């Protein structure tokens, strides 16, 4: 199949880029190494839409963060993704940190961040009663928010696919050749995809992909560990609480998630590219540091811990968003670490413009549909609307995941709608089945059965997240 | 066991789990530590002919994906547990099945395998 554009990587950058390209009359293919979308840095990060006071003025990070954050609410409304403008605080524990907070305020003003102010410790505690008494002041940013990064990516890829974009998973690009008109992307397995333009949004693998067409970048993997607490704890703070960055690091944040849990983390540790392990030390560090800013975090209510990898440059701080120096129809999106999620809608737009600069013709697609309905839509309905839906499709009346109240109808919809879920983790990220307090103890057998039935495979062929991650190892004798 | 030799064991008859001691004598065993007569029986059986109840499931041929829970109607020799599992691996039943129905008579020449559940 010959495409106009191949987007390499189905993370938030690639996904939103594909969704932005879907407006135009183009043949687009998303090429993903993993078994599903949103498996890299997108899967495990702080899930924050930052205000934009942190990046150094005039950098791409500064510009795109402020712009992306402003676009986020609208984009999420269009894609039926839950976004919450909950606001944030950067808290200071002493005068020196307070100076830094004031510097961030000035920076925010320069960057054009709306609704920021510096407040006293008492004012901060009035807004967030769980804040430690040691907080002497804070930067309050009302314009920041929270969003689920994989939810956003799944919705964006789904929307692109609904408009004709192809998604090819399990395709790790190992070579790229260029005949002047078409790039040929080859996978490990020898499969080929041809495209006139490529967007390299391969996250932590983007430097390796860039080397395939002659660009030289070197990324390092940084691991961040997190702990997620039960929904019972989600109300401890209503805003995202950052600590003031110091020489020792960026500090540990405490935030509600858009789904109502409490998230604490991350650590930041240079590591190997495939190391997503959580560690005893990491989890202990989170506990000790988070408790500095917020009192009463109930670690007995931790329901899971996880680690995510981000890709950073060691030398430079900024995103690389450019047309390749060696390959004129390739666009690089490299080193998209924080605030990558916040910037993502603006990054996508920026990439589309780079493609245009590289010669891609952009003709509006009159059939373009800019909205998508999530498989989780059911739970947002009124009782009367739910009953209407159950009457038409009784599977919406059967609860499969009791902790998150996820129905069979929602799970089936996740398997049937773009991008189709084929694994239990895929179901989990699309519907939240298995994401609650029992962590899939009760629903795994039911979800496995539904996937097997829908895909027409044996239950013991169902995987957790593709590849060799089989859940069951055969029938009993 | 030699005469005068003692063995300590935990009775498995009920959740109390008494620690019972059996001493070999010329004409049998002296059992101490048990809180009920079943403890004595257990200790002697454990030293002479240990038995266990086997519970497992068998496939229901005419019900897609269904399994029927079954058990031995009385304890069988401990060393025959795996043989019994093997014998049962090829056994299937056809619904309807009532609790108590014999699924396989005299497994390994010992007690019957009976249904512990019902399938309509």
């Amino acid at each position, binding site marked *: 199949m010959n495409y106009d554009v191949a987007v390499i990587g189905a993370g938030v950058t690639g996904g939103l880029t594909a969704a932005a390209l879907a407006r135009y009359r183009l043949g687009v293919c998303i090429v993903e190494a993993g078994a599903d979308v949103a498996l890299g840095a997108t899967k495990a990060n702080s899930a924050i839409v930052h205000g934009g006071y942190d990046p150094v003025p005039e950098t791409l990070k500064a510009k795109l963060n402020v712009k992306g954050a402003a676009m986020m609410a609208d984009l999420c409304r269009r894609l039926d993704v839950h976004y919450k403008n909950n606001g944030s605080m950067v808290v200071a524990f002493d005068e020196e940190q307070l100076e830094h907070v004031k510097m961030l305020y000035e920076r925010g003003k320069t960057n054009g961040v709306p609704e920021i102010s510096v407040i006293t410790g008492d004012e901060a505690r009035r807004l967030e009663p769980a804040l430690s008494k040691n907080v002497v002041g804070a930067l309050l940013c009302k314009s920041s928010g929270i969003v689920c990064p994989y939810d956003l990516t799944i919705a964006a890829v789904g929307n692109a696919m609904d408009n004709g974009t192809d998604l090819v998973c399990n395709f790790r690009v190992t070579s790229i050749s260029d005949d002047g008109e078409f790039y040929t992307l080859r996978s490990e397995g020898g499969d080929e995809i041809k495209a006139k333009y490529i967007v390299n949004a391969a996250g932590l693998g983007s430097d390796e992909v860039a080397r395939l067409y002659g660009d030289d970048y070197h990324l390092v993997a940084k691991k961040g560990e997190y702990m997620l607490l039960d929904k019972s704890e989600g109300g401890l703070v209503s805003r995202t609480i950052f600590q003031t960055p110091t020489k020792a690091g960026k500090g540990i944040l405490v935030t509600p998630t858009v789904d109502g849990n409490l998230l604490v983390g991350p650590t930041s540790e240079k590591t190997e590219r495939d190391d997503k392990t959580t560690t005893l030390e990491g*989890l202990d560090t989170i506990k000790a540091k988070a408790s500095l800013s917020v009192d009463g975090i109930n670690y007995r209510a931790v329901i899971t811990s996880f680690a995510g990898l981000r890709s950073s440059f060691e030398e430079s701080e900024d995103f690389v968003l450019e047309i390749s120096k060696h390959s004129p129809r390739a666009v690089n999106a490299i080193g998209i670490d924080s605030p990558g999620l916040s910037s993502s809608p603006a990054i996508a737009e920026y990439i589309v413009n780079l493609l245009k600069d590289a010669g891609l013709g952009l003709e509006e697609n009159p059939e373009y549909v800019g909205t998508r309905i999530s498989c989780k839509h059911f739970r947002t309905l009124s009782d009367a609307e739910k009953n209407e839906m159950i009457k038409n499709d009784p599977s919406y009346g059967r609860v499969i995941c009791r902790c998150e109240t996820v129905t069979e109808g929602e799970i089936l919809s996740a398997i049937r709608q773009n991008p189709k879920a084929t694994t239990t983790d895929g179901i989990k990220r699309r519907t939240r089945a298995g994401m609650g307090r029992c962590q899939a103890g009760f629903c795994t057998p039911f979800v496995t059965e539904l996937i097997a039935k829908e895909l027409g495979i044996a239950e013991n062929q169902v995987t957790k997240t593709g590849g060799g991650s089989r859940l069951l190892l055969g029938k*009993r004798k | 066991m030699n005469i005068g030799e003692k063995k300590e064991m935990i009775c498995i008859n009920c959740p109390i789990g008494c620690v019972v001691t059996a001493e070999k004598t010329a004409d049998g065993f002296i059992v101490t530590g048990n809180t009920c007569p079943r403890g004595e029986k257990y200790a002697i059986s454990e030293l002479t002919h240990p038995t266990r*109840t086997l519970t497992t499931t068998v496939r229901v041929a005419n019900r897609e994906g269904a399994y029927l829970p079954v058990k031995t109607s009385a304890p069988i020799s401990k060393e025959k547990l795996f043989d019994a599992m093997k014998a049962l691996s090829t056994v299937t039943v056809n619904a309807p099945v009532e609790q108590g129905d014999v699924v396989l008579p005299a497994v390994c020449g010992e007690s019957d395998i009976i249904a512990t559940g019902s399938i309509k």
Partner: protein
Amino acid sequence: MKKCDIAIIGGGPAGMAAAVSAYDNGVKNILIIERDEGLGGILRQCIHNGFGLHRFGEELTGPEYADRYKKMVLEREIPYIVKTMVLGIEQGENGRHTVTAMNSESGVFTIDAGAVVLAMGCRERSRGQLNIPGERPAGVYTAGTAQRFINIKGEMPGKNVVILGSGDIGLIMARRMTLEGANVKVVCELMPYSGGLNRNIVQCLNDFDIPLRLSHTVSKIHGKERVEGVTVSEVDEHLRVIPEKSEYIECDTLLLSCGLLPENELTKGAGIELDRVTGGATVNQNRRTEQTGVYSCGNVLHVHDLVDYVSEEAELAGKSAAEFVKAGCKEPEYVRRLAVIATGGVRYTVPQRVDVTENPDDIKIYFRVGAVMENVRVRVSCGEKELLLQKKRKVAPGEMEFVRIKGEQLTECDGDITVEIVK
């Protein structure tokens, strides 16, 4: 809106026993609401034997025990609905309760109930709650999930198995998987004592030469896609991992049997206070929660060792609910409230309080201790007054204990009742 005198949330052993008892105590208009496909609860997958010795004087398997109660429910024609999820419970101003539920037939609907019996059971502690470090591959299951896969679905979740936690379900699954041809390499227990019954150590581990390592835990999970192994480490007296005393064990499956947690989200949603130790509601001797007309029993109240005790407690809750309804949805006249305080080695008691009437009945106070202790005495007192001093050869956290207090003794109590372990 459907209307009933008593709504029972959960059709497992607790819910069924509560229903039967409420019926036998004179209230017929009952509704059991069950989320699974049939009555029986978790017993449906507990195909092993060992149930019913107290209740029926014979050893039954889980399905057999459940069927006994199911028969009683059917004989009495007590109404029940299955495949129905209760979403919320709310007390109205008139004191009655609105139960909101959902199923495929009726959609979202409400039930107006005079009394509610909470019998939702419990769930297993997961890998995430245990905070086991390492990777997140397939092949990490709670013992109960593995049990469902094997016993209900006939699927093997793994072949080479390490089990963390010596709770009874873990021990039972060690035997079950061994009989099915799996290689259970070791059972690790964080504590210096087993969490399961001795009989299960004998017949599930010793019978099959499966080693039990006390004071050991899994300190890391290895494997990118499927579990490839675990690091097993010894722990010190503060339960901290000793890194030098660690060993890598190859396996494809890690089963977790590390305790059960009452499922009280509905209870919390109803605004009922929970006991920090049990994770269940706080109740009086009738198993009444802090909310009028709401009763709690079985593993949703506190985790029991034996289903027999669940049934017993549920019968008490069912009877209490029936008496409440028969009195026109009114509580008995209480003259005093006494708190029951767990102290001196006792972790918790159920009930947590006693509401004393003019003529109080005898009560049973169940309790659990925090550590294994031998040759001790249980002391129950009220101020200076000793109500009971009872010898115990051995007490252990894994075994629920109880003491009986006579009604006439309660009449004399005018302060907190203390339950403690003394030498």
